[in-house]
């Protein structure tokens, strides 16, 4: 499969990656090569095979519904790009 510049820009948008036309052009070749490469999977004998999500086929471990973590809000907010009054700041969303 080959992807063109507009397809690259569409995937970049879904991925939340800013990308101009020049950058998209640079990515198109590599992405096309990768999609062509993984097409080798089409020949695999996988009729009736269960998909494998976990190497040991383990099941999700459950724990009691109890508070185990302390409140570290200040430590976590200290490394944020912009906070005020305990809130994370982002550009205005509602005009």
């Amino acid at each position, binding site marked *: 499969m080959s992807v063109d510049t507009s397809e*690259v820009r569409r*995937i*970049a*948008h*879904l*991925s*939340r*990656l*800013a*990308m101009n036309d020049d950058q998209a052009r*640079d*990515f198109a070749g*590599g*992405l096309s*090569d*990768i*999609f062509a*490469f*993984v*097409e*080798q*999977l*089409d020949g*695999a*004998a*996988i009729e009736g*095979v*269960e*998909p*494998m*999500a*976990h*190497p*040991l086929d*383990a099941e*999700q*471990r459950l*724990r009691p519904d109890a508070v185990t973590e302390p409140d*570290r809000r200040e*430590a*976590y907010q*200290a*490394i*944020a*790009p*912009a906070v005020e009054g305990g809130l*994370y700041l*982002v*550009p*205005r*969303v509602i005009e």
Partner: protein
Amino acid sequence: MAQETLSGWVRKLQAREISSRELTQLYLDRIERLDPQLNSFITVTAEQALAQAEAADARLAKGEQTPLLGVPIAQKDIFCTEGVRTSCGSRMLDPFVSPYNATVVERMNAAGAVMLGKTNMDEFAMGSSNETSFYGPVRNPWDTERVPGGSSGGSAAAVGARLVPGATGTDTGGSIRQPAAFCGITGLKPTYGRVSRYGMIAFASSLDQGGPMAATAEDCGQMLNAMAGFDERDSTSVERPAEDFTAALNQDLKGLRIGLPTEFFGEAGLDERVRGVIDAAIEVLKGRGAEVREVGLPNSHLSVPAYYVVAPAECSSNLARFDGVRYGYRCENPEDLMDLYTRSRGEGFGDEVKRRIMVGTYVLSAGYYDAYYLKAQKVRRIIADDFRRAFADVDVLLAPTTPELPFALGAKADPVSMYLSDIYTIAANLAGLPAMSLPAGEIDGLPVGLQLIGNYFDEARLLGVAHQYQQETDWHTRVPAAFA
């Protein structure tokens, strides 16, 4: 002095022949003098290291004997370290000073290890050459025009040049074993779930596994004893009783059944000289009583394509957390929320990371899930089943770690050719099996790695086979002349 192994230093520290402070200073001096040639460290934590060393000396004076007490080590910069920058090789996390420790870091601290710093790596562990790091490429100590491998290239180069006796790595598709092979050291990827992933920055969660990198198998066993163990904070951590990974080091090899996967020897692309080194290593093991037979892994040719669906899919999901809001890089003057997200990510991530996020986003997008992701997960099972059948007849599998010698910086510009340098390592990740690389020869002054793959939870046996090999050979003692 710096030729001494990690296990050798443990003995000398316990015997009080050297203090942890002296040892720590010795390696800090080597890093300062020699690392400018390699760029293997992103952050050196000299002050904290000396404080840790003094605390270790106080404990040694009291006769304490925790496994790594007073031993200098380095952490791959993918492991969160409280109060120390944890960059993951990315501009995205260049400003990130972790507010907590990874479980691996906690456990090694508790064992008394002294952290000298954080090692360089491919950005978010995505690469096989250490060229994708935001902090510049690492160079191979055996030839500084060549790559050290990746993604744990900083750890491998630092240990190879003896700037530190042991370092941690992580291995999602070969990221411990391939750089260990390229830098002439020993490295082990444990069974999936052995080493906690808590605080280890996630790339592909069903494949990622931390492990030790050092000069010898004995060193790796001692490090793994400190690193491994159940952790309730990692939902895929395996609940098993603690194990001594050095227990089988002195077990002889009489009757050991070694399988040679024909697919790892016959395929085009294997350098004949590498093959010669592996053949010679097989003879050494036979001489120690091992029996060798051929086995088939008929679906192994599908490993790399399956991996490049599964790993990017998990990466695109894991890296969605980097949004420029809560921590990490944020773009200047965002116009609106979408601009904040897309520019922070567009400016914060390098090209290889973007490429994998896009592949993952695509294969998981509506209408393509069955054609790519589900199919790859099915292929993953038939690859794991091949191993299951092979291990019914043999105890360990033996193969080259890499098809070729360490390559020159810039030599693999197109993504797919870079991906193929992990052709012999990826299958073990897909199956979740333990596997290691150890030095087995030299060609034109460059090291060659031998790979051993074990059955689930069989790390002690793998390390035992490697240790027996290292009793007979001296490849693991060799240090590049410029760093001797």
